[in-house]
């Protein structure tokens, strides 16, 4: 087992190094110049513009040879310094991410986990209930196939404007300053519900369909038929089928959790909910090397960490993995 994990760890380290290198490189291959974008809005006169351009290019160390920039980048990174954003100058990148990501976690973690749990339960149940399979599952298909943007706007319109049950924008009421009170907590939940529900519905449909198909597939597998021939109770067969069917769903869950720090761009736009997704888009559009790098760094770490957790989880939930390690 130790060998299994040390090998995995090595692979993760190499992947991390390569991914972070690509993360550093890609923004720099984009057409455009971050300093120019930063200065252009100020409508300076020619002398001032040229002076400031040199000034900032030096301040951001973008006047150094590319290899020096690359080394500086790693050096800063290992010291925990992600640099300063040019798009939101002069805010440090770590501060921007730290301010924005909690909103995403608050929105995405519950919606991903709950939709995974409910979707799998429902999918497994639907697979063996003909009536449910014929009625509710098509709704699941409809939900996953709906363009998310459209679903979001529809929810905001019906529940926010027509019925007026929920607010249409913000993370909490614009009439409040954050404080500890029932009113405030209520406002946060009230504002959270619609974006959460939209993410939950779409996720739910996807997981339910996946699980339902997987269960049907497993029930048709040879081992199920064999168990059936042996006269095993249906309950037992289903239990085995479920344990097999859950494995790909777990990998899917890990991938979704891994990119949680990337935020939910469309949700943020439709419900005007704060978060990192919108900022990543703006950072890319403005050639903000440092903010793009910083965001993707966390995405890389997130994906790798999630994969690692899944490796561990597989050892626990799939005896075949354990057996394989002993066999080595």
């Amino acid at each position: 087992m130790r060998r299994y994990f040390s090998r995995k760890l090595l692979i993760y380290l190499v992947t991390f190094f390569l991914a972070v290198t690509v993360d550093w490189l890609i923004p720099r291959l984009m057409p455009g110049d971050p300093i120019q974008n930063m200065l252009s809005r100020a409508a300076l006169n020619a002398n001032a513009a040229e002076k400031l351009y040199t000034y900032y290019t030096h301040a951001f160390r973008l006047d150094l040879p590319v290899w020096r920039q690359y080394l500086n980048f790693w050096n800063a990174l290992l010291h925990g310094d992600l640099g300063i954003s040019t798009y939101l100058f002069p805010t440090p990148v770590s501060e921007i991410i730290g301010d924005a990501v909690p909103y995403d976690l608050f929105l995405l973690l519950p919606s991903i986990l709950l939709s995974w749990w409910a979707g799998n339960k429902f999918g497994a149940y639907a697979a063996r209930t003909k009536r449910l399979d014929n009625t509710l599952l098509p709704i699941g298909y409809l939900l996953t196939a709906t363009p998310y943007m459209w679903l979001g706007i529809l929810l905001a319109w019906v529940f926010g404007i027509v019925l007026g049950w929920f607010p249409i924008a913000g993370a909490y009421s614009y009439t409040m300053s954050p404080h500890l009170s029932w009113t405030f907590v209520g406002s946060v939940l009230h504002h959270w519900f619609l974006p959460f529900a939209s993410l939950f519905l779409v996720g739910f449909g996807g997981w339910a369909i996946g699980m339902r198909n997987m269960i049907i597939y497993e029930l048709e597998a040879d081992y199920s038929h064999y168990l059936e021939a042996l006269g095993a109770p249906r309950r037992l067969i289903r239990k085995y089928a479920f344990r097999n069917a859950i494995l790909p769903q777990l990998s899917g869950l890990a991938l979704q959790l891994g990119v949680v720090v990337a935020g939910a761009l469309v949700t943020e736009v439709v419900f005007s909910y704060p978060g990192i997704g919108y900022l990543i888009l703006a950072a890319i559009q403005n050639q903000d090397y440092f903010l793009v790098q910083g965001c993707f760094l966390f995405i890389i770490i997130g994906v790798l960490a999630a994969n690692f957790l899944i490796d561990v989880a597989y050892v626990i939930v799939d005896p075949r993995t354990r057996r394989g390690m002993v066999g080595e």
Partner: protein
Amino acid sequence: MWSRSKGVLSAIVVALLVVGIMAFGQVYERTETIYVSGAAWGPASTWNPFQPGSLANTTGTLGFVYETLFNYDPLTNEMIPWLAESGEWITDISYELTLRAGLAWSDGTPLTAEDVAYTMNLGVEYDAMWFAPMFDYVTSVISIGDRIVRFDFTDAPLYQEFDNNLYNIPIVPKHLWEGRTEEEITIGANENPIGSGAYLYDSHESDRNIWIRNENWWAIDALDLYPAPKRIVDIRFSSNNVALGSVIKGEVDLSNNFLPGVAGLSDQGIITTYFEGAPYMLSANTAVLFLNTTIAPMDDAAFRRALAYAINVDDIVNVAYAQLVAAASPTGLLPSLSDYVDDDLVADIGWSYDPAMAAQILADNGYVDVDGDGYVEAPDGSAISLEVTCPSGWTDWMAAIAVISDSCKAAGINVENVTPDYGAWNTQMQTGTFNMTLNNWAAMSNTPWTLYNLLFRHPIQTQMQSGNFGRYDNEALFDLVDALAAIKTTDIAAMQDACSAIQEVLLSEVPMIPLWYNGMWAQYSEAVWTNWPVDGDNTPSRLPTTWSGYWQLGGLMMLCELELVD
């Protein structure tokens, strides 16, 4: 297991009790608060008044917290003494400014001439100050006593720019700034800013900024001004449809977002706009089609002129904008500067949409369709294939360049519309690697020089960061623009003459094509606040805007004139 979950349960109960006890937090009174949106496009990042390009996200920094010596009203074209009581040229090269009595910073310290001199001299000390180039013609700024500031000049002052600076340079408190390092002063974030203005910084979150009235503001006594809302909540919406929904619901009082389709809502009385009919909005700046004159065939004035006739501006106004904008004068000057438009010249050599005329000019100058593909070729027989660009996602401009492309094609000129990312678009513009592109970077101004300084920025450099993107090179014209810059703003007749000379070149050579006036997008809800700026007699005529850099152009006066709905 049981005992652990019991522990968790009791912890939750205790936490909820604490929450319950602390339930006295702040909920804003609706009748004391105004909700606005449309200025910010990202989270607040800086309150440094010397970073004008980055202040959109904290729009009150200029105008609320930090004030200027003068204000300017574009609707009446008047400079309004603000921190200054008066200012006059004592000689041609010496300007003396008298501050008002009783000015004070919000921390109680008096605001004196020393603060003004200190602020101005930052431009001498630090190249990174945007107004540093002013000291090419200003030799010294000194304070005389508490209320007099004297500016001395070289023998060639740029009067137009100087006047412009008088209402754009924010005055900062010397006692809080003089201990700061160069970096803190030029690029520091300046959190918790202390200024002299009508509102104080209260707090900010990633999607809102909150400002609170300064009850000790000097102008409450001195000018009898009192802003009606006690609190301003400036909201950043990440999409326009949310902004629209919020105004309709009356949750946002003033939205300065561009909302297509507002014309219909205004007609139905659901929202209020400055004008009752088209164009509904005041004009804020001129959208100009820059032509890259270093590239054939746009190096040919005849071809450029044909383009000017070929573009269907009416379609841009009526289709792309659904009547929310007005077509621009070929001189590019905003209606507020119409005194400087030479009407005879415009009638004589100006242009308007006329495809027949475009075809005529093309044919007369040897642009004919040789290979029969429906598009003209250059006189030397080479094919013409051009691109017109604007940043991706700027939906109104994307619709406009589609109209430009269509009408050029209809006139036989092969122009495709392309939308690169903002950053790529910006770089193409500044490095001169575009064909044609839209730009509107001249803010509303007291002088036509601001626009002509954008259009004819010189000298031509490898990077043109803030003007003349098409690299139109004409020394004689540059001299005319410099001549305009050196005329006193009080000498209207001389300014008109200088503008006529510039317009003669602009209209005959067509270095770029002014197309339409972008609007000062503003829609108001009258659910809570009323007496908004609208066109007409005996109504408030102010710029109804929260955009950064516009508070001293009338936005603050709008707040002082608002009234609560009964």
